[in-house]
Structure formats: C-alpha cells, structure tokens
C-alpha cells in the first residue's frame, strides 16, 4: 500500500455530489411506481415499504458519495453507489413503470444489488479484492446475476406472450420463448444459490480473520445478513421457478433493506473514525509547533495509531540509507507482525513507516493519519537529512583528527625505534672506542671521542623530548591519569591536578582531553599565570576537562582546540581564565 499516492487528483473534492440528484430522482421514481401499482411492487403502497426502498438506496449512495469524496482513487465508492441504484431496479419491472428502457434495465439488473454489495464488503476498506479466489467468485456472481438471471432470460421474455398487455416493450427481446425463459430462470436460481452461498462463506471467513478491526466487523456483519437473506429468497423462489414478490418475498426484502442501511452506516462510521484519527494527529502535529523535537512525529503517530512499536525512518536521498529523526542510521527491519508502508513525495520515497500489520486492515486509518502528518513528516525528514549531513561532517572531521593522531603516533614510534636506537647504539660504540683509546695515550682523540659521546647524549635527550611532544607514548599505554601526571611534572608552571580519572577512554577522547590540558597550560603560561588547576572527570556519559588559572584574561579563542573537541561532538567553553571541554564518551 502506498501512502500519499493520491497526488494526481484534479477533480474537485465535491464532484461526487453530482450523483445525489440522480439518486434522489431514481428513488422517488421507484417509490412512485410502487405506490402506483402496489400489486407488482416490493415496497407496495405502505410508508414502511417506501422507507425501506428509499432508506437503503439513499444510504448506500450517500455512503458511496462520502467515501468517494475522501478516497478518490478507491474503487469502493462506485460499488456502493451502484448497489444503491441496483437496490431500486426490481421495482422497475413493474408493468406500470411506463418506460421501456426502465423496464428492460429492471429486468436485466433485477438481482444486481447482491453481487455489488458482496463485492463491496469483500473489498472493504481498500476497494481491492485480496485474493484471486475473491476475484473469481465475485466475477462469477456478476455473471450469475447479470447474465443467467438477467440478460439471458430477458432476451427471450416477451411480456405480451406472457399475458402482460400493460407491460412496456422489452427492448432486449430477441425471440420470445416462455419455455426457455422459465428454464433460464430455474437454472439461474440454482446457480444463484451456489454463488450466494460461496459469497457468504468468503464473507464469514473474512469476518473471522479481521474480527479485531471494529470498523470492518461493523460493515461485514450486515453485508453477510443481506447476502444470506438474498440466498433465502432464492431458495424460497425455487419451487416457483422465478423470483417474485409474494408476501414472504416482501418481508425478506424489508429485512434486506435494513441490512443494507446498516451496511451503509458502518461505512460512514468508518469514515468518521478516520476523520477522528486524522483530527487527533493533526492536533498533535500542531502541538508539535514549528520546531518539534526530533522523533516527536514518530511519537505522535505511535500514540494516534496506538502502536508503541511503530518506527518512522527517513530515507536519505543521496545514500538511500534510512535515518531516524536525529539523523542516526537505522535498519528498517519489520518484525513478524509488522508491515512496512513507504511514504512518497512526488513519486520519490521519503520515509517508511514500520507498524503493526493489523493497522493495514483498519479502513483508511493509516492513510488518514499519514495525510494529516504529512507536512510534519516531510519537515522532519528534511531536518533528519540535515542532521545526518551534520553527523557525516562531524564523522569526517573526527576521521581527519584521528588520522592526524595516528600519524603523530607512528612518527613517535619511528623516532623511538629508529633514530633513537641508532643514537643509543652510536653512543655505546663511542664509549667502547673511548675505552680502547684510553688504553693508549689519551690526548686529542680521547677529548674528541668524549665530546662526540656528549653530543650523542644531548641529541638523544632532544630526540626524546621531540618524540614525547609529538605524541606521548604513555597516553596510549597507561591512559590519561599517567600522561597528565607527566605533563604536570614537566610543565613550566605549577600544575595542580585535582580530580583525574584512572578510567580508560577511546584513543580520540584521551587525545582530545590531553591536548586540551597541553594547550591550556601553554596558553596559561603565555598569559603570565602562576599556576593552572586541572580537573578531569566523568559525568554520566561525558568526559569533562576543566582548567583554571590566575593569568591575564584570554584573548585567543583556541580555535584548533575547539575544532578538535567539536570533531568528537563535544564542546569547548573558553572563558577569560577558564577552559572547559565536554566530550561525549560511551
């Protein structure tokens, strides 16, 4: 099922109302005919009969028109309207009907109402038949009603030959043959009982399957009663060999009218429920305000549809990934009893709704609710996309920082394992050479070797400082606490380590916290501070680094540091003599 697929509607919303005058005219015409010649009529001259006639027909047409106004693409509306008109047709076979056309249409469509109602009930509320079996049975019942009990007998029915001299002309007559007419009718009735029973079974089966959806039950029960009553009437007519209007038929006919009225009311009730759901969600959407918090649309939908497990995922146009309201990537995996409804904008999928599969059985509920939430959903989709893009950017920033850190670390290792080892080896060799020379006289060569050894020593010292500055190995190996302690040992001004954390964090977080302290100390020293106090601590899922000093007020915004912290989704608060970095950690 596609929500928001009805984009191409161009006919005005109230177009279907044009049907109403025709229905009114057809109803009044039928009642007038019945009253004029009550002997041949179902409604007869009684008020009750008139109410049954008009009530059922107008209720069906009215429900159809309302349904059509709400669901323009849904094929249910024509079925309901057709059933309303078909309900009137038996009266048109009255000899006094006064119109050959009406008479002929009445003969052909005498029992057309039953398959139309059964079709509508089976297809309620989507307007589509669910299975091939349904399609086959409905097609058979149309054929049974319109051909074997409609057109075929009509083509051989000559009213005058049958003794009806007031009857209008039968326009469909080909060759009058009363015997064949009787035969067609007899077989048509037997056949009719067959397809009517099968329709009953299908409707009851559908009722059992959908018993959890009140609106569907409300529509199916009267439809089943109606089809059962028609079946009974057929069975009653078997002995007579033809459908008629004896007193039993008339009583059944009135009951059928009541069932059809109830069916039409159930359809209208379903529409009201849809509107209520839509109004609820519309109210919620309004309450969301102009800047709803992320995920609010999902919550509103879940509340309105009464589905706590409901998920709303937005599709990212460029990657095709799905994200939640916060822009985080999510996997769309419907559970066993869940269904997925994609939402479209201009034919392009923008989101999917994962919901309780039973919601699909509710007449139009999902569509109504989604229609009401449409603007909010589209709005949140755009916001989710922006958030997702921001998250992409942040992730790419974090990767750049991480790559830089990894590179520094590699450099540090190379210095230690390469140059430094060689210098150590060189200084050992120099020492050994010196020992050998000392055995001789000493003098200039000894002095030279001693000096070379000292140079190698200071080169080693400088190299060690350089490597440590590039990346402190202790940070990766022993964590923040040890690295900060060493930092305090070496600092050019007193560094007071308040709270520290022996806990280990991911490398990027430890690096960021360490850099914050390094740059904070440098900055404080530059502003003439006489001490810096450093606090590192965890508050829930955030690592917080706070620095305070007594130097002059800061003028530099420490942009590089802010970038580094920002890359981790954290924030850097730069005060005059305070610095506070907050980094989210798991």
């Amino acid at each position, binding site marked *: 099922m596609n929500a928001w697929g009805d984009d191409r509607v161009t006919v005005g919303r109230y177009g279907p109302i044009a049907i109403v005058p025709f229905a009114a005219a057809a109803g009044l015409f039928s009642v007038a005919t019945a009253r004029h010649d009550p002997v041949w009529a179902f409604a007869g001259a009684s008020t009750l009969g008139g109410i049954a006639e008009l009530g059922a027909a107008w209720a069906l047409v009215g429900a159809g028109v309302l349904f059509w106004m709400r669901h323009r693409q849904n094929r249910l509306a024509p079925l309901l309207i057709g059933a309303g008109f078909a309900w009137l047709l038996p009266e048109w076979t009255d000899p006094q009907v006064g119109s050959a056309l009406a008479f002929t249409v009445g003969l052909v469509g005498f029992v057309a109402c039953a398959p139309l109602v059964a079709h509508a009930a089976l297809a309620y509320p989507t307007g589509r038949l669910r299975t091939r079996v349904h399609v086959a049975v409905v097609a058979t019942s149309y054929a049974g009603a319109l051909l074997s009990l409609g057109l075929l007998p009509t083509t051989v029915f000559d009213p005058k030959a049958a003794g009806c001299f007031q009857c209008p002309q039968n326009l469909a007559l080909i060759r009058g043959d009363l015997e064949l007419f009787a035969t067609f009718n007899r077989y048509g009735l037997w056949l009719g009982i067959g397809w009517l029973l099968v329709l009953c079974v299908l409707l009851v089966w559908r009722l059992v399957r959908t018993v959890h959806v009140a609106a569907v039950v409300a529509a199916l029960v009267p439809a089943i009663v109606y089809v059962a009553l028609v079946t009974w009437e057929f069975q009653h007519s078997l002995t007579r060999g033809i459908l008629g209007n004896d007193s039993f038929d008339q009583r059944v006919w009135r009951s059928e009218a009541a069932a059809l009225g109830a069916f039409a009311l159930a359809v209208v009730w379903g529409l009201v429920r849809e509107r209520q759901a839509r109004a609820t969600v519309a109210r919620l959407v309004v309450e969301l305000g102009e800047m709803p918090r992320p995920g609010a649309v999902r919550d509103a939908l879940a509340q309105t549809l009464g589905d706590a497990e409901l998920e709303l995922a937005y599709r990212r146009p460029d990657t095709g990934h799905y994200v939640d309201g916060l822009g985080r990537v999510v996997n769309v995996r419907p559970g066993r009893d869940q269904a997925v409804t994609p939402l479209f904008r201009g034919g392009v999928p923008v989101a999917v709704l994962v919901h309780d599969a039973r919601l699909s059985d509710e007449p139009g509920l999902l569509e109504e609710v989604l229609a009401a939430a449409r603007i909010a959903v589209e709005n949140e989709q755009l916001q989710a996309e922006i958030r997702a893009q921001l998250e992409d950017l942040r992730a790419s920033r974090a990767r750049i920082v991480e790559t830089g850190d990894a590179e520094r670390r590699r450099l540090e290792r190379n210095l*230690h394992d390469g140059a430094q080892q060689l210098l150590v*080896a060189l200084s050992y060799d120099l020492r050994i050479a010196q020992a050998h020379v000392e055995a001789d006289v000493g003098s200039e060569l000894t002095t030279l070797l001693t000096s070379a050894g000292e140079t190698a020593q200071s080169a080693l010292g400088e190299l060690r400082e350089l490597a440590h500055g590039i990346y402190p190995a202790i940070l990766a190996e022993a964590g923040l606490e040890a690295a900060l302690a060493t930092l305090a*040992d070496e600092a050019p001004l007193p560094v*007071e380590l308040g709270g520290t954390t022996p806990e280990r964090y991911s490398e990027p977080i430890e690096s960021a916290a360490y850099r914050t302290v390094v740059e904070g100390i440098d900055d404080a020293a530059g502003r003439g501070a006489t001490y810096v106090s450093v606090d590192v601590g965890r508050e829930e899922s955030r690592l917080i680094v706070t620095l305070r000093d007594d130097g002059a007020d800061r003028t530099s915004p420490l942009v590089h540091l802010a970038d580094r912290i920002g890359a981790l989704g954290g924030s850097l608060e730069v005060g005059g003599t305070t610095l506070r970095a907050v980094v989210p950690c798991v």
Partner: protein
Amino acid sequence: MRVVVADDVMLTREGIVRLLEDAGIDVVAEAEEADGLLRHVRLARPDAAIVDIRMPPTHTDEGLVAAQRIRAEHPEVGVLVLSQYVEPSYAMRLLEEHPERVGYLLKERVFDVAILVDALRRIADGESVIDPTIVSRLVGRRRREDPLAELTEREREVLSLVAEGLSNKGIAHRLFITERTVEAHVKQIFLKLRLAAEPESHRRVLAVLAHLRASAY
C-alpha cells in the same frame, strides 16, 4: 656477576653486551623478546636481567611486564629495565609490586658503564635504582607552595638519593658523611614533608616518589 641482556635491537644489545664485558661482567645469555628472556632467566639463573622496556610484539611495555614476571617467579634475580621514557609512572609501576632488586634507567645512562655496573651491584645488594633524571624532574617540579623549600640544601640532596633508591649506607658513602648523619637527615626530611613514619627501607623509595608526584600542593 652473571647477567642476561634482552633487547630486540641488535645494535644496542651488542653495545650493552660489549660495555658489560669490558667492565668484567659475565653476560650469560642474550634475548630478543620477552619469552626468550624468561627462558634464559629460568635456565641460566643470572644475578640480574637487563631488559629493554619496548620489545615485540607491540613495542609498548612488554619489558616491564617481563620484569614483573621475573621478580615474581625468581625473587633472587634482580631486574634492570632500560627505557627511553622519562616516565615516573613506569618506574613506580615497577616498584609497586616488588620494591627491591629492581631498577629503571634511561638507555643513554648506560653510556657511562660505571653507572650501569653500579646499578647492577646495588640491585644485587637488594636496593632499587631509579634514574636520576626522573628524580630530578620530580624534585624540580614547579609547585605553588613548595614543601621542598623548607628543606636544606643537604636535605634535598639526601631526598634525591633516597628517591634514586640508595640505602642510608649508600647515601653516606656517596656524600662522604656518616650513616648516622644520613639517618638524621632522612628523619628530618620525613618530618618536614609530613610523610608518615619512615617505612621499611625498600618501601620508602615508592613512598617518596609518590609523595613527590602527588599534586596536592
């Protein structure tokens, strides 16, 4: 004296071995990584093992871990860790579990073979050895209210030597004073620094280092 040398870089290992041999120390085995080192220690039962802090496979602190294992499994074997890091944390980690017969020296310190030999002797005697660079960094650390300021010049000297792991006897020898004078200085230092009563001699190195490192000044 019999020692085992472990260093994964052949050049530096050979250098150390030659320096040691020239100084008359018997190098009974050489190892390139921690497992080989442990095997040699088990088989050769040396007086001490000289261990590079960085060894395969991760080149981080394998040497330190091996040192702790040797001290735990062979208490009679001393361990001297050679490191390229001026990191008190590593030195203190080494002292924490087995405070005697261990040493932490910077690699280039070994350049002066006398220092190396002296360190090995002290380790064999049951002392511990902490690189003077580390100690001087801790002592020279910038503090807001420096309790070390209360110490006299001589007391500072004694404090540094205590932190380097020297025994009172060693300090007396180094400073050309009597052991009794050293004891008096140490007592005075502990008093002035408000350190708890002087712990057992081999524990006092760690206590002093931790105190110097503490940041509550």
